[in-house]
C-alpha cells in the first residue's frame, strides 16, 4: 500500500514538474525529459512489472493533459518501462553508468518515434535537422538531469525496499 502510494505520488509529481519546472530550466527551448528518467529508473530498480506500470501511468497522465490523442505516450513509455525492466537483476542499481546508458537509448528512441509519427507523417522530411536540433540536445540535457534525479529516486527506492523487507517483493 505504502509502495503504491509512493509510486503514485512520484508519477503525479514528475508530470507536474515536467510541465512547470522543466519549462523554467529549459536551455535554447529544449527541456529535459524527466518522464523517461523516472520510467527507466523504476524499470531498472524494481523490474519489468513496476517499470511497465510506471511508464503506462506517466504516459497516460501526460496524454490526458496535453495531447488530443490519448494513449500514444502511454504506449511508448509502457514499452520503455518493460525494456529497461529487462536489465533488472543483471546490473547493480547503485551504479550510475547503466541508467545513463539506458536513459540515453530510450530518450533517442522516444524522440525518433515522436518524429516518425507526429512529424514525418505530415511530410516533415528533414530528419537530421530534428535529430540535431531536438532529439540529441534533449538526450544530453536529460543525461545531465539524470545524475541528480537518479540519486533521489534510488534513495526513495532503498527506503521502500527496506520497509517492505518482510513483504512479498522486498527481497531482491
Amino acid at each position: 500500500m505504502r509502495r503504491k502510494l509512493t509510486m503514485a505520488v512520484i508519477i503525479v509529481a514528475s508530470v507536474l514538474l515536467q510541465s512547470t519546472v522543466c519549462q523554467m530550466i529549459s536551455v535554447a527551448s529544449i527541456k529535459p525529459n524527466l518522464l523517461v528518467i523516472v520510467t527507466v529508473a523504476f524499470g531498472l530498480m524494481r523490474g519489468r512489472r513496476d517499470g511497465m506500470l510506471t511508464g503506462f501511468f506517466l504516459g497516460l497522465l501526460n496524454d490526458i493533459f496535453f495531447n488530443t490523442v490519448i494513449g500514444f505516450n502511454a504506449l511508448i513509455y509502457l514499452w520503455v518501462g518493460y525494456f529497461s525492466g529487462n536489465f533488472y537483476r543483471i546490473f547493480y542499481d547503485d551504479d550510475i553508468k547503466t541508467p545513463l546508458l539506458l536513459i540515453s537509448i530510450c530518450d533517442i528512441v522516444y524522440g525518433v518515434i515522436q518524429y516518425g509519427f507526429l512529424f514525418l507523417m505530415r511530410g516533415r522530411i528533414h530528419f537530421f535537422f530534428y535529430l540535431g536540433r531536438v532529439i540529441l540536445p534533449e538526450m544530453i540535457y536529460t543525461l545531465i538531469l539524470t545524475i541528480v534525479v537518479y540519486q533521489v529516486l534510488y534513495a526513495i527506492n532503498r527506503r521502500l525496499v527496506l520497509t517492505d523487507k518482510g513483504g512479498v517483493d522486498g527481497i531482491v
Partner: protein
Amino acid sequence: MKKKTNDTLKNKYLLIGLSIVCVALILVSFLDSEVVSPIRQVSGVVITPIQKGINGFGSWLSGLTDNFDDAVTLRERNKELQEKVNTLTEENSRLIQDKEELDRLRELFELDGQYEDYEKVGARVIAMETGNWFNLFTIDKGSNDGIRKDANVISGGGLVGIVTEVGPTWAIVRSIIDDNSNVSAMISTTSDRCIVAGDLRLIDDGCLNLVKLTDEENRVHVGDKVVTSYISEKFLPGILIGYISELNNDSNNLTKSGFVTPAVDFRHLQEVLVILELKEYVPSTAVSEGTVVQGDALRQSEGTQTESETETEQ
C-alpha cells in the same frame, strides 16, 4: 524456478494487455475526441491548482533575488525612472490629444475601434507542453470565466494562439508558432491573402512561415504588417500577427512565400488576454479554400489542411 517463469509470463500478458488498452484509447480519441473530454475535465480540476502553486513559487523565488539589489542601484534607477516619467507624461498628454482627434475621425468614418472593443479576460500561463516538439500551454482561466473552445488569445497586441481545450478553471492554448498551426492571414496594406504556418525548424530564428501569398502586382514588401484575415474560420479579423521579414517568389511564379516575425515574444510569455467573442462562421464549401485550418497532427481529415501542410514543405 516455476514461479519465475510464471512471473515472466504474467509480465508478458500485462504488457500485451496494457498495449491493447493504449491502442484502444488511441483509436477512441481518433474517432471521437468528445469521449475523452470528461476524463480531462476531472483530472484538470485536480491538477491545475497544483501547477499554479508551483509556478507561483517559481516567480516568488525569482522575486526574492531581486531584493538583493542594493540601495545605490535602486536610487540611481529611481532617478532614471523619474526622468522617464517626466518625458512620458509629456508624451502622454500629446498622445491623448492625438487620440481624441483619432476618435473623432473614427466616428466620422464610422470605423470600429480595433480589437480593443472585444471583451477580453486576462490569464496567466501556468504550464507548458511536456515535450520539445509542440507549443501548447495551459492558462489559469477556463469556462468559469467565459472562455470557450476556439477563443482567440492575444498578448502585447499580437496574436498568440487559439484555445483548443477548456476546463472549468483552465484552458489549453495552441500557439501560432506550433508546428501544427496554420492561420489564414492577409497583408494589412494590400489585403492580399496568405497562410501563416508555424514550423519547428524556425524556433531558433523565432519566426513563422508565410506561404501561398498571392501578390500579382508586387505591392507587398518586407516589413509589411500581417494580420488575421476576414475569411478565417476561427480567428477574428484584423488581429496583428507580425511583420514580413523575408519574401521570395515561389517556383510556380504565382504565389510568394517567406517569413513573418511575430509581434509576440513567445519565449517570455507570462500573461495573455483571451478574447471571449468567438468568430461566427457558417461552414460552407464555397469559401473553404484558404481558410484557417487548425488541427492536430493525427487528426488530418480536412483536405485543406493537408494541402496547406504540403505547401509549407517545399
